């Protein structure tokens, strides 16, 4: 039973903490009035970024600023990765990355995906880790928070969406940085190393020399989790004992994965002044999350199939797990990391029981169970609008969302944003499964090999970044394909909703009456779950059947 302490503890504490944190997010991102400390921070922003960072923007200007900033960040990171042998802080003499890998990595970190086709400790210098990758782990997450804030402002009926640069500045300095510092300090207490020295060399009992990689791990892990980035300092990510040494570090990191995404929903509620609506959304997300965790834990408590028939005393699937965590902690993490588009792992998803493997896959297909920092809420917004449109007609009125009429133009944009996700996953999987690019990269034949390809594209499209592993994905076709998938999967579903909200905000508000379709009731929760499951999941049902389900049933 103690197995299940972790998931229960994590859910209760994180949900509890999300409430005050949501309050703080509003203070940080959209303050009503600034206290003395807060206004000093704002004037620092103005001094640093110039006057342009103070003026309010329309949704078009906001998107333009966001894209400009992201393109700039991408170019800088790409340059760093190609020239890292000449940079300081490179005690182990790492050389530059192969261009397609550098492209994939730069895209991956700009888009908050952190899909890694490399092993950090093998390929990256300290400089690249800290000022290339970690810097982007901050600002890419900040971009997500900024976008969610702008969305909330628009839905509150404001045509001034705020200032993109100012929002990123606020999200980085007031949210991500303090949160990471706190998490990093706690991690150091748990035994995670934080050093600028090069790899340690130890002599083993047999007398051999062993090189043990180390570095500024605690700082890296903290933002990796808090910003739903997921890119590990080490190749094995949080399964590595230096990234995640103890039970409590594991609890802390699992909580850090969820914390900001949960709080963003409350921030949305506060800015729009619709806490009940936010609570319905939160409830739907939580229900999907808790059921996924439950299903995952139960499925992982069964032994792996190759052991099932053998006379060994094994009660759960421990293949690919860290024994210090156990299977329930691994399943909880697997669900959390894929729900939130984090992508860090503390166990190898490749070794999950086949049906358990379906749980993280479907979490990425839906991509709305809390989701990536900021963007999870934005994705859910698309389903909310779809649900409002379909069910809204059933009350005999033109569908309305938060007093604004939802019409053809908005629905066109919603569909474009919703279509991108399955198009990237299904298209990519179909292309690679039917060509030698995919077939030669898979480790296993049949359904499992198919799941590896499917997982990689799902992970890239959902900006998740976790890998099913077992896939030889550091090749030019994989690097370029996943790079493009990540770009489209990030920015189309981010810009289209802002455009929708821009159009909605420009409309006249309809007064709410007894005839208005309400979005703050349990009934709407049911509509929303139905929309997410039927619209979101139906598209992937054939894939699920051919991959994990067929493997599970294969016997």
């Amino acid at each position: 039973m103690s197995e299940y302490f972790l998931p229960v503890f994590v859910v209760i504490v994180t949900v509890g903490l999300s409430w005050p944190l949501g309050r703080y997010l509003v203070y940080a991102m959209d303050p009503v009035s600034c206290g003395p400390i807060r206004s000093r921070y704002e004037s620092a922003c103005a001094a640093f970024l110039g006057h342009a960072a103070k003026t309010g923007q329309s949704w078009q200007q906001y998107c333009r600023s966001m894209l400009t900033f992201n393109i700039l960040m991408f170019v800088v990171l790409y340059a760093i990765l190609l020239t890292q042998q000449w940079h300081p802080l490179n005690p182990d003499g790492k050389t530059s990355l192969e261009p397609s890998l550098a492209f994939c990595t730069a895209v991956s970190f700009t888009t908050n995906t952190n899909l890694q086709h490399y092993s950090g400790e093998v390929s990256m210098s300290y400089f690249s880790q800290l000022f290339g990758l970690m810097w982007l782990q901050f600002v890419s997450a900040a971009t997500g928070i900024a976008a969610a804030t702008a969305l909330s402002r628009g839905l509150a009926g404001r045509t001034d969406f705020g200032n993109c640069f100012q929002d990123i500045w606020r999200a980085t300095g007031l949210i991500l940085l303090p949160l990471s510092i706190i998490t990093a300090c706690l991690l150091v207490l748990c035994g995670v190393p934080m050093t600028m020295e090069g790899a340690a060399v130890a002599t083993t009992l047999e007398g051999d020399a062993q090189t043990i990689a180390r570095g500024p791990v605690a700082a890296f892990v903290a933002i990796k989790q808090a910003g739903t980035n997921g890119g590990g300092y080490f190749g094995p990510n949080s399964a590595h004992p230096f990234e995640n040494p103890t039970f409590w570090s594991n609890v802390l990191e699992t909580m850090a994965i969820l914390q900001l995404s949960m709080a963003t929903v409350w921030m949305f509620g506060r800015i729009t002044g619709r806490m009940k609506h936010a609570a319905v959304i939160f409830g739907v997300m939580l229900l999907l999350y808790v059921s996924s965790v439950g299903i995952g834990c139960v499925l992982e408590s069964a032994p792996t199939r190759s052991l099932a028939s053998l006379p060994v005393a094994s009660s759960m699937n421990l293949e690919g797990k860290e024994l210090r965590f156990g299977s329930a902690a691994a399943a909880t993490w697997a669900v959390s990391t894929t729900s939130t588009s984090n992508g860090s792992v503390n166990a190898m998803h490749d070794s999950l029981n086949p049906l358990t493997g379906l749980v993280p896959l479907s979490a990425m297909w839906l991509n709305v169970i809390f989701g990536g920092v900021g963007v999870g809420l934005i994705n859910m917004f698309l389903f909310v609008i779809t649900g409002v449109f379909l069910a809204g007609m059933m009350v005999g009125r033109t569908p309305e969302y938060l007093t604004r009429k939802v019409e053809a133009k908005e629905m066109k944009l919603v569909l474009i944003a919703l279509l991108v996700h399955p198009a990237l996953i299904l298209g990519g999987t179909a292309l690679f499964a039917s060509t030698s690019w995919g077939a030669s990269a898979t480790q296993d034949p049949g359904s499992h090999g198919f799941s590896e390809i499917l997982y990689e594209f799902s992970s890239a499209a959902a900006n998740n970044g976790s890998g099913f592993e077992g896939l030889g994905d550091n090749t030019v076709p994989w690097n370029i394909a996943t790079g493009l998938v990540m770009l489209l999967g990030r920015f189309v579903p981010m810009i289209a909703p802002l455009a929708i909200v821009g159009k909605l905000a420009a409309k006249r508000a309809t007064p709410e009456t007894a005839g208005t379709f309400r979005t703050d009731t349990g009934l709407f929760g049911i509509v929303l779950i139905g929309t997410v499951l039927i619209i979101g999941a139906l598209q992937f049902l054939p894939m699920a059947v051919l991959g994990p389900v067929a493997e599970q049933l294969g016997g």
Partner: protein
Amino acid sequence: MNQQTRIGSDLQHAATSQRSSLFTAQMLAPSLWQAVRMLSPRTMARNPVMFVSELGAGLTSLVTVAAIISGSADKFYFFTISVWLWLTVWFGNFAEAVAEARGRAQANSLRSARKDVTAHRMVDREQRTTEDVLASLLRQGDEILVSAGEPIPTDGEVIEGVASVDESAITGESAPVIRESGGDRSAVTGGTRVLSDFLVIRVTAKPGESFLDRMIAMVEGAERGKTPNEIALTIVLAGFTLVFLMVCTTLYPIARYFDVTIDVPTLIALLVCLIPTTIGALLPAIGIAGMARLSQSNVMAMSGRAVEAAGDVDILLLDKTGTITLGNRQASEFRAAEGVEERELADRAQLSSLTDETAEGRSIVVLAKTRFNIRGREMEHAHAEFVPFSARTRMSGVNLGDRQIRKGSVDAISQFVSQQGGTLPQCVRNDVDAISRAGGTPLVVAENSRVLGAIFLKDIVKGGIKERFGELRQMGIRTVMITGDNPKTAAAIAAEAGVDDFLAEATPEAKLALIRQYQHEGHLVAMTGDGTNDAPALAQADVAVAMNTGTQAAREAGNMVDLDSNPTKLISVVSIGKQMLMTRGALTTFSVANDVAKYFAIIPAIFMAALPQLAVLNLMNLATPRSAILSAVIFNAIVIPCLIPVAIRGVKYQPVGADSLLRQNLLVYGLGGLVVPFAGIRLIDLALVTLGFV
């Protein structure tokens, strides 16, 4: 028809009146063939879902032909799938054709009224000389003479004469109506017939754009553009189609990974089952049927957009008189001043009203007779001089020598007596206030400088109207009463009738300003009107129902015309608008929810050969992979004709709040949409096995 029963039956009117005539053999037979003609790709391209289905059916047919030529063993299976795919498309067209046929029947009866008659155009109005021209050559502004027994050639306004007109060709109402120059009954419609006397009419319609022409075009659906909500839904359905197109096209290469080759007809069968064909097929029929329901309740909408807007309306402006109260006020009480006999007051009141032809005047005469048995007298001998009501004096009455008897509003009488050196006694003032507060209209009677007392004119609120307003409130619709009464009277009637708000002492400008203000607050406003002074407000309102008896100006300004001229109709117009949207939403939900079962029928069937373990997913225990696929396709096709009655009648609408409506429809169409196909596909599979098809 009796007004009271009218109110009660309005809401159900649309639903019940057509139940008997949903399908008749005359409609069905031409529709069967019309549905085939509509298979032309040019017609189909308007509807993306059905267009994709038709392309799929075409492609499957080609593959079938190839299979027959090559003598493949699959030819029978391919052939069956092709047939059912074509049937799917044909069923969709049939639904639209049936809906149109119902409108066409009405259009034909209207068209018989629109004959190209000879009109008598005025050459010289003084001399009454006319020339004969064809009605189709009449231009706006022409003046024509129509004599008894002749049809009125086109729309116009009466500028001279009074006549009784038979409007049954348009309204279906056989009782003739009076049309006269000036006032609110001056509009005449082409296609109606003058029964007695003659009319001189100024033509107001351009050739081919008369009311009758527009009506015919409307009921035939020729002018039917897609409404905004219909466009949005079409986009959503196209989006869903695109998603499933993607699912199916990528499934082919992915199946190759598992060494499975999916044959084209099976893949297309999967595609057509997954895309929302049910709603795609029924969408046009829903819109056409909505318009038809409206025209069956004798309201002509000038655009589908207006019908849809009616569903969104959240403020109804209702004229008090005729809508909330029975048209005419009735005298119900005499309240004599101190020192005056009630009988004397009744006598003077009757004297002043003897030639007053208004309903109020007549009711005073009647009340005096019933209360005190005072009879109407012949007044010629007394040198009686009658003073008719005028808007300036706001009094009417009679002069008998030096006796000046007047009745009128309290202000007018007060002014009248003070000119003669009298004053209005306090007790009369109190009575007047009391009458106002009780929702009545006070009329004060005076003889020379002496005020005799007040008459209580009572407004009779229609029976059942309060419950109706309560229902509207639950639907989220506020009712606002418009009246010319003073605020006190208005407040009392408003309270009695249960309206949410009222506009007292309403002028056309005040009405217009009120509508603008509501719209500025984001409300959608519906109103009815008949007079020319209603025209600006009608033009401003989002849904404006003009009375057919009204003036041409009012009819031009409104976006609907009520042929029955029944102001309460507004409420059923709103219900029909809501019902149309609800039907779309419900059938879309049903259509999308069906996909779950279809997936469970087809996906295991496709892959069972290569991955036999997937047999577990064959939840419905379908006999063979091919019977599974066929059953899904057949279910998908026949669900369309099964739902045609729902599309044409509309889903059941009750005047309740949004929450209960949603709960009800989710249960029936959401949950039903999940469960029904599981049962349906299983039954079809059983039938196929029993009949030996597989």
